[in-house]
């Protein structure tokens, strides 16, 4: 019911945003810098939302998301640069290979919990990075040249599909099962939910979209290097999810937009940027451990405003 009410406004809104930006770009009202920033925002939202599915919905604390980004980036770059196939094939195959990587990583490591899972995913991401570092076919440490193919249209369509799939997944039976795993894994196990299955599925879907984001990412920067996909990239993605609210999709989207804009302006001062990021992480965790929006969605706030007194139904 929730889906059918919100689906068409969402589609129309998305279409409006797309058309406005596309018109502005073709008219030359947005220069290269702004359109690049917009593409970058779209990529970051895809990353944030895909990690939101793993951390926010399923409650599995993965800090190795940059590994899947790297898989998508490299595989798609190989497809367009070495095999000369169209970009759309590269995006899909990049996503699929990243999903397979997600399965390979997820099936053994999702048996672990909490801190151990975090460290294991971090370890896998580092292994993926080191593997690319040691393959001469993709340029090793020097990196690989990639031509710029990512346009606003590609970025926006991917973003649209990502949000649509993840919202629908969240509202489906599977999503509810995944939320029950987040709330209490032992209890949901006792209720007959196959917790491992749902954790792995959510992880693979998250990895798929991280791979899609990787394909867009690699075709946006002219060059990819293993160094771009280290710990810091994973933490960058993590902070989107944490700041927005663990379990809030709109929160993840908003914080991805906000932090991308902030970091674009702080590009010349990388230390200041990281100091601000780390302070944000610490302060948010100390004073609002569920993130700024908690598990609330932005539409919940609208309902709260409409019913100022009895708005508790969507509260916690």
């Amino acid at each position, binding site marked *: 019911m929730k889906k059918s009410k919100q689906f068409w406004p969402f589609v129309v809104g998305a279409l409006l945003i797309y058309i406005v930006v596309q018109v502005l770009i073709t008219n030359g009202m947005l220069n290269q810098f702004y359109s690049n920033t917009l593409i970058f925002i779209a990529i970051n939202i895809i990353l944030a939302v895909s990690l939101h599915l793993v951390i926010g919905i399923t409650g599995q*604390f993965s800090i190795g998301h940059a590994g899947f980004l790297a898989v998508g980036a490299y595989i798609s770059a190989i497809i367009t640069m070495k095999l000369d196939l169209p970009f759309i094939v590269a995006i899909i195959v990049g996503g699929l290979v990243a999903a397979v990587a997600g399965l390979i990583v997820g099936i053994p490591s999702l048996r672990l919990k909490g801190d*151990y899972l975090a*460290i294991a995913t971090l*370890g896998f991401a580092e292994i993926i990075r*080191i593997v690319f570092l040691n393959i001469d076919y993709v340029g090793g440490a020097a990196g690989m040249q990639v031509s710029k193919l990512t346009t606003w249209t590609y970025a926006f369509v991917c973003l649209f599909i990502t949000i649509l799939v993840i919202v629908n997944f969240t509202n489906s039976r599977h999503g509810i099962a995944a939320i029950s795993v987040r709330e209490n894994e032992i209890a949901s196990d006792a209720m007959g939910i196959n917790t491992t299955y749902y954790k792995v599925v959510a992880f693979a879907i998250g990895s798929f979209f991280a791979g899609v984001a990787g394909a867009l990412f690699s075709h946006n920067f002219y060059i990819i290097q293993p160094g771009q996909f280290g710990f810091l990239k994973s933490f960058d993605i993590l902070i989107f999810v944490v700041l927005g609210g663990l379990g809030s999709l709109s929160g993840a989207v908003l914080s991805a937009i906000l932090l991308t804009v902030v970091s674009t302006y702080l590009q010349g001062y990388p230390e200041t940027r990281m100091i601000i990021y*780390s*302070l944000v*992480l610490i302060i948010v965790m100390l004073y609002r451990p569920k993130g700024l929006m908690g598990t609330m969605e932005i539409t919940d706030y609208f309902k709260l405003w409409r019913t100022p007194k009895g708005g508790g139904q969507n509260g916690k």
Partner: protein
Amino acid sequence: MEWIQQLINGISLGSIYALIALGYTMVYGIIKLINFAHGDVFMVGSFIGFYSITVFGLGFFPALIISMTACALFGVIIERIAYKRLRNATRIAALITAIGVSLLIEYGVIYIRGAQPEAYPDVFSNKSFEFLGAQISIQSILILSVSVVLMILLQFIVHKTKTGKAMRAVSHDTEAAKLMGINVDNTISATFAIGSALAGAAGVVFGVYYTKIDPLMGVIPGVKAFIAAVLGGIGIIPGAMVGGLLLGVVETIVSALGFSLWRDAVAFVILILILIFRPSGIFGKNTREKV
């Protein structure tokens, strides 16, 4: 005879890992937190040692002691400001805070002094002697003896002093320890102080042995030391020592075989294998999950 040489290199590297891993394992044992910032305390210790040698012209041992004291203080400050409020928070919140503290220290140091690396001064003569055909430098002997002395000291503190007894009690059962009149806050602070002091010592030793230090040097040794702690069984002090030495030797052997680019990957593969097949580590006992 090259193998003896490599073994000695491995043990030297491993003893540094072991010193850092001890801090991880003690903190984890007592508040179940992976203190990501521990690797950065190690880095800060290294820089304090560097400045006390170059700016104040001190020798190795005074620099070691200054660095250990400063790091102990630093560790307690971190614990009091960032981690104390999170005692009852979720594990994920604590972990994210630890990541934040770690990034803050790294980039705070870069902000203050820049990211350029620094060359550690030679504090020992580079003499070496031959032993069974292997070249052993005085440095590696000294490093090894410093590590061994510190570990013996730690064992003494944990098993023979009142603080150590309190630490063991708190890590066994915090609530019960509180009921027995143990000051839990002070005990946790003492744990952070001791762990951070060991990391500081490891920092100075690392600087002397590898001569190059920079503000991001703590990340990789920090993660490796964590792997060492998991390998030995996290929360178990002798486990951290054995795990550290083992990891150091394995890494050196992998490098010696000509796979030095894969060295970091091997450490992570060990971590994942341990986590999957024996998550309680070499010395750990299997504990049953309680609902």
